[in-house]
């Protein structure tokens, strides 16, 4: 039984506790022994992305120590995992300890598909789902093929979602454009950030998205922030919640195959 240390990003801990629970449940359902070390806080991404690397270094060091005892570290966030795996080397000297930590840290979907080799998830989710590709998951962790690159198609999140009964997918005109969150960018470049988010939502509305999902709650926090100001907001769920069997609130299931929209 792999011993998994659950890495719950700080804002999920504070604002979206159910996403953490759902992650825990999915991992347990697939045979992991999961533990949440309470000494963890934040991976340091906001500081590093603002350029304040000296403020990020102690947080990165803390993460490595906190998660040292585990076989794997799994987080419901492509962005935070990308921070660890792709950017900790910008902050810290490349020691064995750091390399080990980077090699055992995974985003939830990739951990399920690549490490646990899960090829189907049981359950039912009879909705037209709009999958938001988070940029860091996409272009840093390569959880799917990005639209700019040429090669075979793959998409780890959809691979898992598609086995759910009744699920269908909204096909966007811009498959993987950024939602505009970008951490502190969302505040410092508010005008562009919000326009980007509104455009993503418009694409989803046009494609008939009934439930919006993503592997990163930060993108969803930004999108839903805008969505809530819209006359008809649609429900937003983290992919862990869908995989754990949660159902969306506020809409009734429709038979997605007959094309009707709730």
């Amino acid at each position, binding site marked *: 039984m792999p011993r998994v240390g659950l890495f719950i990003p700080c804002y999920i801990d504070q604002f979206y*506790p159910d996403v953490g629970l759902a992650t825990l449940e999915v991992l347990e359902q697939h045979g992991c022994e999961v533990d949440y070390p309470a*000494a963890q806080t934040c991976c340091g991404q906001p500081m590093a992305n603002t350029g304040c*690397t000296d403020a990020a270094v102690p947080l990165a060091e803390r993460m490595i120590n906190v998660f040292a005892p585990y076989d794997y570290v799994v987080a419901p966030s492509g962005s935070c995992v990308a921070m660890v795996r792709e950017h900790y080397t*910008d902050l810290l000297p490349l020691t064995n300890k750091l390399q080990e930590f980077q090699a055992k840290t995974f985003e939830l979907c990739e951990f399920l598909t690549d490490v646990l080799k899960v090829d189907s998830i049981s359950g039912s989710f009879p909705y037209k789902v709009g999958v938001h590709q988070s940029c860091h998951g996409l272009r840093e962790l390569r959880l799917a093929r*990005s639209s700019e690159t040429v090669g075979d198609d793959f998409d780890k999140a959809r691979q898992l979602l598609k086995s759910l009964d009744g699920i269908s997918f909204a096909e966007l005109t811009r498959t993987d454009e950024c939602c505009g969150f970008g951490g502190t960018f969302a505040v410092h470049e508010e005008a562009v950030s*919000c326009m980007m988010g509104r455009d993503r939502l418009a694409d989803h509305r046009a494609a008939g998205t009934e439930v919006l999902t993503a592997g990163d709650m930060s993108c969803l926090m930004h999108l839903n922030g805008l969505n809530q100001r819209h006359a008809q907001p649609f429900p937003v769920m983290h992919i862990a919640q869908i995989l754990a069997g949660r159902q969306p609130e506020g809409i009734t299931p429709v038979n997605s195959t007959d094309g009707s929209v709730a």
Partner: protein
Amino acid sequence: MAGHAQLADKFVANEERAQWHDKSLWFVRHKRDNISHSIPEWETLRETASQVKLHTVAHLAQYLEEFETNAKKLGVTVHWASNAAEHNEIVLSILQEHNVKRVVKSKSMLTEECHLNPHLEAAGMEVVDTDLGERIVQLRKEPPSHIVLPAIHIKKEEVGEVFHEHLGTEAGASDPGYLTEAARQHLRENFLAADAGITGVNFGIASTGGIVVCTNEGNADLGTALPNLHIACMGIEKLIPSPDHLSLYTRLLARSATGQPITTYTSHFHGPKPGGEMHIVLVDNGRSDILGSDDFRRSLSCIRCGACMNTCPVYRRSGGHSYQSTVPGPIGSILGPSQNAKEHSSLPFACSLCGSCTDVCPVKIDLHHQLLTWRKEIYVRGLLPFSKTFPMKVMSKVFQRPGLYAFGGKVARKALRLMPRWMIYNPLNGWGRQRDLPEAPKESFRDLYKKRKK
């Protein structure tokens, strides 16, 4: 000086225009996707093109010497300029030696970077930009807003207005065919009247000493075929080792830039035309500083296709002028601070770090990583405002103490639940103007986890 965010704010305020700008550029990005996806070996091409450029830049001194020797053998006069002022002086003195009054110039971002036009105009010369987009922005007395599509920010109705004023076209005309024909006639006269032609350089070939210029309008060809004097202005990073490498770049350039299989005119210049004179001005202007930097050297591989601009969701929604640098968009946000970090300190932050530029770049420059590195540089050099650094320092201190973090979280969530809406959504809350905050739950995940374990 207003930073990128303030100028972007103004651009987005006219949402209709920002939408139109975004869609025009997305159209080009989409064309690029279609055509690059028709080449199965695309990623191999990119990788090879990247390696060749990195190799060339690593041996730049040697290739430059080789280029100079071979260009001279072809009868070309080669000049060296260490900065923009020297470049402008050299060009001016060549023109003055030949008693030039009228110059036609094809598109060259280098001469934009050096502000050549005003320099020549101050000496009493008339300089006409012959690329259609360049001519439009020149008539409007504006800098280009994009390196491949210099007038992408201007609508056809606005082109009609400019042409009405300067070229005497009918008032209110906006038909692209009609306007293009008017521009063609106008430019024809200028080509015929010109005493000298200035071009940029897309590729300099070390082993032959020749240069290659790519245009879609043939204006570089007309501008060099008619007058007897041709001056080519070239950044020192434009070299490739040999003609064998050229096809890599010609295949990638047009596809990445506009979604065309190849530029309409890919013209090779190997020496002056019979009876004519050809000069090449090799310009450094900060490039050897970039060459000396491990962090940013890779930005010298850029072939100026503009794909990173077309794909950049920030550029598309804020317009090229919001960058206030000759080269805008992702690559401009690296080159700008390399030239003047203080002046361009906001550019590396005009980026959501989505990485689309890195994936689209035909020579695989890791643009978004270099932008992140620039953020650190800006901070280290003390150019980041206190309002940005202070919260990060405080957060870091809190996050170093899990107990304090958990307690602070609890207090903040409680405050958010209890505070009336007007107190949360105030003008100081940059998040809340257009977006709702997430609902603050009573218990954090760590609280729930503790309970679940019991």
